[in-house]
């Protein structure tokens, strides 16, 4: 993973998206593939890990959700840590999710259904 711009870190209790990340979320929400933005974000994080998508390193992150709403059951962060590193912070997860959303939105333009995107391995970076 590339170096992270330390001026744009998460506060630790909230998760935000860049403007491009929000735009990507709008694209995916229009497709009605996900129940809500949280569901899309969580899939986007695992999509980014599966496809080696580089986390977003620049841009301003505006708060969208609380960490509690992203990991209400408490099983999300442990699994992500298992796959992407045990000391993964919420800030790093936010950057992965932002990049994952953008990559998924790009892929969605040629896709009919969500499976075409999330099970279509893509090594392209954001």
């Amino acid at each position, binding site marked *: 993973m590339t170096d992270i711009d330390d001026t744009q870190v998460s506060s630790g209790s909230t998760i935000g998206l860049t403007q491009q990340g929000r735009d990507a979320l709008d694209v995916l929400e229009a497709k*009605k*593939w*996900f*129940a*809500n933005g949280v*569901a899309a974000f*969580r*899939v986007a*994080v*695992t*999509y980014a*890990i*599966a*496809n080696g998508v580089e986390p977003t390193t620049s841009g301003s992150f505006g708060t969208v959700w609380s960490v509690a709403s992203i990991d209400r059951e408490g*099983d*999300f962060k*442990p*699994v992500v840590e*298992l*796959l992407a590193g045990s000391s993964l912070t919420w800030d790093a997860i936010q950057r992965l999710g932002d990049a994952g959303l953008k990559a998924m939105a790009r892929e969605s333009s040629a896709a*009919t*259904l*969500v*499976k075409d995107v*999330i*099970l279509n391995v893509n090594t392209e970076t954001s």
Partner: protein
Amino acid sequence: MRLLSATFENWGPYYGTQSINFDCERTAPIVLVYGENMRGKTSLLRGLRFALFGSVEGQDGKMLDPAVMANYDARDESDSFEFGVTLMLEHQSEEIEISRRFAASVDNGRVVLGSIRNKMRIVGKNPIPEQDIQEMVSRIIHPDIAEFFLFDGEMLERFEKRLRSDETSAKYLRERIEMVLGVPALRYLKTDIEALIEDTSAAVRKESSQEKTSRDRIKSLEAVEDAQRGLAKDRDQVTQELEETRKVLKSLETQMQEVEAIKEIFFDRKSKEEQIAELDRDRLGIEAEMRAFLQTNWWIPVADRLSLEATKAEEAMVSAGLALDRQQRLAYEAEQIRDQIGKPICEVCGQSVPEEEFGKLKERLSAIEDERKDETIIDISLLQTRFKSLSRFINISPVIEQFDSFDEEIRRKIFRASSLKSEVESLTQSIEGNTVDVSALEKNLQNARGLEDQFERALTGLEEKQAEAVSKRSVLIRSISDLAPSGGMAKAKLQVLEQVEDAVGNAIDRFRDSMRLRVEDEASAIFKRLTSEKDYAGLRIDGSYYLKIYDEQKRPIDMRSAGADQIVTMSLIGALARSAVEEGPIVMDTPFGRLDRTHRSNILKWVAAMNSQVILFVQSGEFERERDVHLLDNRVGREYVLRREGATKTRIEAMSHD
């Protein structure tokens, strides 16, 4: 007569030159032509009629401009082209070719008909002169009776409608039977005799005009003849009005048929739109399930890795457990040995321990200490925590299968809805631009039918009055003739003519009755074969031409089902066809559309049992090959499919028939 082949050139939807071979073995004389609606089945039937009679008839029997049969693609390709039909047939062991082709030009996209070229030749002989072609064709199959051989489902319906009403059916049936059996020709003879009687009675009047009584009767006769003239004039007027009304009625019925066709397409489209809506509803439901699924299974993109990690975590936990167990066992053993070495007397038996035994224990202790030197601290709880968080990914197959199943189900629904949408689009195109006011049309149709009934009743009334006048006049002529001086030439001639008139009239009546009975027998036999109603024993056409179904006890059945009406019609047409000529092909266009399965199957079995050549143009709604072809009892000699190649183009494709 037997059809051998037909070749269509730029005819209707048949672009270029396309042929159908009707020539089959006598043991398998049935030809099946499969085509969905708007593929060109009716164009084939029109083509056969055109080749025979040189005119193009609409489904209502009305003449159409032949230009409507020019193929659109041929028209769009060139400024001038030809279109027409060539028919090969066999009649009295001779092969005959009839060809009719139009030369056409195109003006602003409109087809302008040029000359028609009619050719007819008996194979191996000189061509028939063009002016004799119609006469020759009429000898093979007369145009007046062609409708009983080349008929379509629509004609059946019209025929049936007439037969359904008691008021019109008797007259209609009588006309049809007489037309097929040639009674009108005999009537000309009677008319000629009547004209001779007219002339002769004038001479008789002259001979007997000296007598006062005669003069009075002549006056009465003249009054009757005046009345007759008046009646004839009224009759001509009513006949003319009736004909006009029938023309209007026909045109309205044609429009109504078009509306019916549009309605059918509309309902078809509506049903397809409902199917699409249902598919969309189902799809939305599955998509909602898929969304809920992804809320809890957000890890789907990394499912494979998680499964692998879970397996690894399990293995690590198991092997760490084993290693920890060994560490604990070795520690315990070392502690036991150390304890033993410090005690020279055995605690169990109380005897002294030999020196060599101490040596062995020290060796073992040294080996254990060597092994424990590299021991690492195993934190099993950490591994257990890791496994716990991954354990649900050990067997993820059911979850992945569920995801795949949602995906496949949604795709299926999308695909089906998309095909239906294309069908809806094509149906919409086919009814575009139709803005018929159905209720006004129905009202006009109702009015025209009322007028037709009114004129028919007036005509019957006038005919009855005319018959009365004829009889009165006949009595007067006889009485005048009786008063005429005997020995007069005119009187003698009149007497002979009156006897001849009676004889001819009686002969016609007897001939008509015998033919009516023949048609009745044929129709009854066919009806019994076709009907699915056990209570129906046959058909009867009584002396007044009332058509009745009767039961086993010879009682007429007044209430009958719509299905029975259709079968009655089919039976009558079959009987008329059989009574008209010795042998002729029967060509049916969409004949079973409105019949139920049992009647359809009965008709197919009857068709298979006929010795005639039968050509059926069918669509999938009325005849399904897999389901129905066995009913034709291996009598199918050839099969064709009308394949759609475009909105205005159909290809005739022979099915392999081994």
